[in-house]
């Protein structure tokens, strides 16, 4: 073993100074950490609200103001909403004019949707887990459901207000209703769906055609699953639907969907409706007795069965009536987006310059898509179609030739 010199190493005082400095810094950082944890954003709101309650009511009332993180467990929807940690006045009366987050929630809607059962995010969206403003309101990366607030509403639905935007979430549960009280923009869009005959091509809530895509759960389609290559401006699902409803061919080159020349307000309402068709995880404890299907109305069914007994029977049972009226046989269409078939024999000649026989066997335009995807007719059925159309035209000519009943 070699002989050695025992020393205390490098100057010990340097290490001692380092040790002291580091220790002081570490204590300082730890104190900061504890302070930050002890003084979260929500504590300030809770203190202010307790003061407000004390001034307006009494010390006893102020003592009843809850302290700490508040949470509503919405077991029917598998959610935990902590919004009431700051929004303490939600269920209190007397703070209707206070500033957020300490304002009373409008009482009307809470009577049918009590906050202790429905929570907040089912209607408002946002990140119920978080307890600081920025992340709870959810306008942050990696949170796909930001709060449906006034600013977003103004950007998407100018002038319509926040409640209109929130109708999006109403329709999550109320989707099978014909009319939902308070969700005017959704009701307006639903009327458009009926009037414009969207179901002629699209299946919605289990009913409708197969020419376009099934729209029942269209709202679940992820933003990244849309093709934005032909969309200018902001790339969002809402913007895509807006542009698509305005002019479908501008976004989807080979589509057969026509432009319906809708007003901007109608387009926005429909875009919102399509986006609202999402699967919402709610059970019977929340949905209650809301309808769960959207069947054909009794009047419509009665009308169809009545028409199916008449001379236009074939047009009804085959399904042509969904888009085309056949007036000479008394066949009405619920959504007459196609021409009256009474004069089809003549009309086809004029529009396509081919006889009806050729057109039915080798159709072009919209009917090509219809015969390819929805009404797949065998050659024998097509022959029958040609016979029926000729019969309708003969009846039309007969009615034209017959003396009209004299008017008195």
């Amino acid at each position, binding site marked *: 073993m070699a002989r050695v010199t025992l020393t205390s190493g490098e100057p010990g005082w340097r290490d001692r100074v380092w*040790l002291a400095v580091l220790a002081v810094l570490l204590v300082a950082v730890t104190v900061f*950490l504890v302070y930050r944890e002890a003084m979260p954003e929500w504590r300030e709101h809770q203190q202010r609200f307790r003061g407000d309650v004390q001034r307006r009511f009494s010390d006893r009332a102020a003592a009843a103001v809850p302290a700490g993180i508040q949470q509503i467990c919405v077991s029917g929807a598998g959610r935990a909403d902590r919004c009431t940690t700051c929004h303490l006045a939600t269920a209190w009366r007397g703070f209707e004019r206070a500033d957020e987050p300490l304002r009373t929630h409008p009482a009307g809607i809470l009577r049918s949707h009590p906050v202790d059962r429905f929570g907040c995010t089912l209607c408002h969206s946002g990140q119920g887990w978080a307890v600081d403003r920025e992340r709870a309101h959810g306008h942050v990366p990696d949170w796909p459901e930001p709060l449906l607030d006034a600013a977003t509403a103004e950007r998407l639905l100018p002038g319509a207000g926040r409640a209109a935007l929130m109708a999006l979430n109403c329709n999550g549960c109320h989707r099978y209703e014909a009319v939902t009280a308070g969700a005017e923009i959704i009701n307006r869009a639903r009327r458009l769906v009926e009037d414009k005959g969207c179901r002629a091509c699209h299946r919605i809530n289990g009913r409708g055609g197969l020419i376009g895509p099934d729209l029942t759960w269209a709202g679940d389609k992820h933003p990244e699953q849309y093709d934005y290559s032909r969309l200018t401006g902001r790339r969002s699902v809402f913007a895509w639907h807006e542009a698509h409803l305005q002019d479908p061919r501008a976004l989807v080159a080979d589509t057969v969907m026509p432009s319906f020349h809708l007003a901007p307000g109608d387009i926005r309402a429909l875009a919102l409706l399509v986006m609202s068709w999402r699967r919402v995880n709610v059970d019977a404890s929340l949905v209650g007795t809301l309808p769960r299907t959207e069947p054909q109305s009794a009047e419509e069914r009665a009308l169809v069965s009545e028409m199916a007994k008449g001379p236009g029977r074939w047009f009804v049972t085959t399904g042509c009536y969904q888009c085309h009226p056949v007036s000479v046989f008394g066949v009405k269409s619920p959504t007459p987006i196609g021409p009256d078939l009474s004069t089809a024999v003549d009309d086809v000649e004029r529009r396509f310059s081919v006889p009806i026989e050729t057109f039915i066997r080798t159709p072009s335009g919209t009917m090509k898509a219809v015969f390819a995807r929805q009404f797949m007719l065998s050659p024998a059925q097509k022959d029958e179609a040609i016979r029926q159309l000729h019969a309708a035209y003969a009846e039309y000519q007969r009615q034209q030739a017959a003396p009209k009943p004299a008017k008195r």
Partner: protein
Amino acid sequence: MTRRRFWSLLPASTGEATEAILANFLLHWFPARMRSTSLAWTPSLWLGTITAVLFVLLLLSGLPLMVFYIPSTREAYQSIKDIEHVVSFGWWFRAAHRIAAHLMVIVSTLHLARVFLTGAYRNGGAREQHREWNWVIGVAMLAGTVVLSFTGYLLPWDQLAFWAVTVSMNIAAATPLVGPVLRDLLIGGREIGQTALMRFYLLHIVVVPIAMAVLVGYHMWRVRKDGGLARGDAPQDGVEVVVAIPAVARRVAVVTLATWLVVTVLAIVIPSPLEDAANALLTPNPAKAPWYFLWLQEIVADTTVRVGSVVVNGAFIGGVLLPTALLVLMTLWPWLDRSPAAVVGRTMPRERRTQVLVFIALAAFILALTVVGLLRGPSWHFYWPWQAWADVPARF
């Protein structure tokens, strides 16, 4: 030896120093005496000690996370949200755990680089040394560090976790012969789900940490047995030796507190990301591997060749062949290095110029590929830092 005037932490004799060490369990970690060169800041930079401190910090910060984390595909994501938002100091424990894990990968790699550049994996002048085996243990511990970090990656069960692991498992499956079996064994089935989460969780909290703890203990013991920092010359008379108490203990305390401080401050400053909940039906764009695998992913992407309709997948070259070759070469290097023993312990000596240059070139290459990988944006396109990514489409 200075004479004690009043009172001092410095023991009066080597005997007293040894006794102090023997009498105290914690001090047992340290040798009674060590060369003053081993105590110096350079060339070791104390990187090994920093790595060990980070490992301890990871164990400590992992304990509270284990209390609140639920290893279930249904509840994992929600439990992380709770840790992040409502558990007292939860966000800090999570951030500290994450930062320390990233730092441990970085610092242990730097430690390996330092040992290579000083040739410290070889025995110097003294006898009874087995430094080459400690190098092998070190390489194993670096691999263990990466495995620890990687198994932790899946646990939050968010999109980042799910797809990083999906990408990596696809690469693992490209191993010849055993690939698919290895993959199935790791994830416990054909798809990444509950069984994969449970296996990764157990690897993360039980298997790998215990293995690492054993290796750390052996590594430290070996360093002591081999006489501290590697040197080319044999021990001579008159060499300066310091006693562990207080000099070494104090310096270890400085390194520990400094590491702790850095982790704490970074954990406060850098928030921990948590992406959308895992969705097996929706691939994020881009889907990236963890950053320490990005250079491999970059090679995988660049060596994937399309000739007509035939695709030669780069997963085998970049994901299996290259890292395995590197790992084997690294493990065997102490026996391949034929430079004179006298240069052991000297930083980048002229006698080892070629291997040092190759090592630096390789390190620069890996670093460059990592940076390129970090800068990749949607559809694996390259974006400069000042170029904005094509905006991610939103709902509204």
